[in-house]
């Protein structure tokens, strides 16, 4: 038992990678498992509740978040400048490891690509990576070094496969899939995948992030589970979506 709670970290950089999508690097020596997340907030200003953000990357001396500006909390975050500080609780939630004996693909949709980078980086063997975007891809180059195959899909067809990333191929020749993205994408994937193990990283509105409020509950075959504590990663088989 450590008396930790929220701790403050300095912003090293915080830049838009494309419109409305920011990359923020925080200074510090972080230890966390791939697929985990942090609860994040500003000090003494901004909304009451913290915002959950996935670990996008951890490097020597810093942690990277990749986030979309969708509302007040993320807008305040986007205005942070180097030298400002943010407060983090975590790392939180369960994790996911790509194992050498399993042929694995990582599938990300939109801002759902965020957790895939650190998962790929910490993999025992390079996974294939499939990234889907509405229009222009972003941040995709970062994945090159860690991907077996890297394939892009865009709904508008501007780059790569034209259409949904879930439709790029038949997935059943993989042993294992890990997917993160909007709920319709995850549902579509669940329906398509028959013969391989599918793991989904879920989002839910959270108050506490530590398993106390039951606000993030999701229905499973084993009863209600908490996205923040029992997840965010669930086997698709267990979920009742």
């Amino acid at each position, binding site marked *: 038992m450590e008396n930790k709670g929220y701790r403050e970290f300095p912003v090293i950089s915080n830049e838009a990678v494309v419109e409305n999508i920011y990359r923020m690097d925080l200074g510090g020596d972080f230890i966390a498992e791939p697929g985990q997340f942090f609860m994040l907030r500003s000090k003494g200003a901004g909304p*009451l509740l913290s915002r959950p953000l996935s670990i996008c990357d951890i490097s020597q001396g810093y942690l990277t978040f990749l986030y979309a500006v969708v509302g007040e909390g993320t807008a305040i975050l986007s205005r942070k400048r180097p030298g400002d500080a943010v407060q983090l609780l975590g790392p939180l939630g369960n994790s996911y490891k790509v194992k050498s004996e399993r042929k694995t693909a990582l599938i990300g949709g939109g801002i759902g690509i965020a957790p895939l980078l650190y998962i790929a980086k910490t993999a025992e063997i390079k996974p294939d990576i499939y990234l889907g975007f509405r229009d222009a891809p972003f941040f995709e180059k970062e994945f090159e070094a860690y991907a077996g195959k890297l394939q892009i899909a865009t709904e508008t067809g501007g780059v790569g496969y034209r259409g949904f990333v879930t439709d790029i191929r038949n997935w059943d020749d993989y042993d294992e899939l890990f997917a993160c993205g909007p709920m319709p994408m995850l549902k579509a994937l669940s329906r398509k995948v028959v013969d391989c193990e599918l793991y989904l990283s879920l989002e839910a509105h959270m108050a506490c992030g530590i398993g106390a409020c039951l606000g993030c509950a999701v229905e499973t075959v084993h009863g209600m589970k908490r996205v923040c504590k029992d997840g965010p990663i669930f086997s698709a088989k267990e979920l009742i979506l």
Partner: protein
Amino acid sequence: MRTDLAGISLKNPLIAASGTFGFGQEFGEYFDPGILGAIATKGLTLEPRMGNRGRRIHETPAGMMNSIGLQNPSVAVFIAEELPRMRSYGTEIIANVGGAGIEDYEEAIELLEATDISIIELNISCPNVKEGGMAFGIRCSSARRIVRAIRRCCTKKLMVKLSPNAENIVDMAYTCAEEGADALSLVNTFNALAIDIENRRPVFNNVTAGLSGPAIKPIALRMVYEVAKAVDLPVVGIGGISNWKDAVEYIMAGATAVQVGTANFVDPLTMPKIIEGMQLYMKREGIQNLSEIRGIIGGNHG
């Protein structure tokens, strides 16, 4: 800061509010729950409940709405699986009991009677379950029925948790006092509404949900003040307490003890920080016992 709550001696007047502290386990990673005056369990019902579907949490300015719907493993499972661990914390455990009909409440209480728990918090004010729940907490006549029934079968200290949606909070308090409650706790969440304008429908499946957090503090504090002044029972103040100053305000309004809810989500270390802050405050002000300031703004306590 030792505090007597209806004859039960608490280490200090800081109680974790029901539904915001689970059964304590999650907070054990952050601090020793044994430092708290007491922990009120997540609302327990006779049968297990999976809680509500759809959105359960919505943030509002300086507050939040929830529609958890009393998700809990049942009183029996609580007694078998959670209580022994909670006991090990070495702090007072308050069993918060909800229900649909009076019989459910009665049976739940009966099960708890067989335990060594000394305080029952009777939740007649949960706005998030369709049947029962808050319905009992609106009008004095319904409250009277349930408190009377429970008092008959409850030999533990009975603390009734009042709803701020009660038609008249002071009359409600009198009613509970008349029916033999040992203490009152208030407030539970305010019935509230949020609309998803993009989709032109309520955010929550149940339409309304319960508002809590700093936003409600000024109203809750007024209610605690009125009730503490009116009735001769210990009153536990609840609503928006986030720091030691808020806690001191409640004590000055007449509260015997306080509960911290939403603020536990905002920072898991809120409660230890409040305890520390109050200790420093008392030292600085030369206060030996909180009774020196309890109700000092004009209640009948202190």
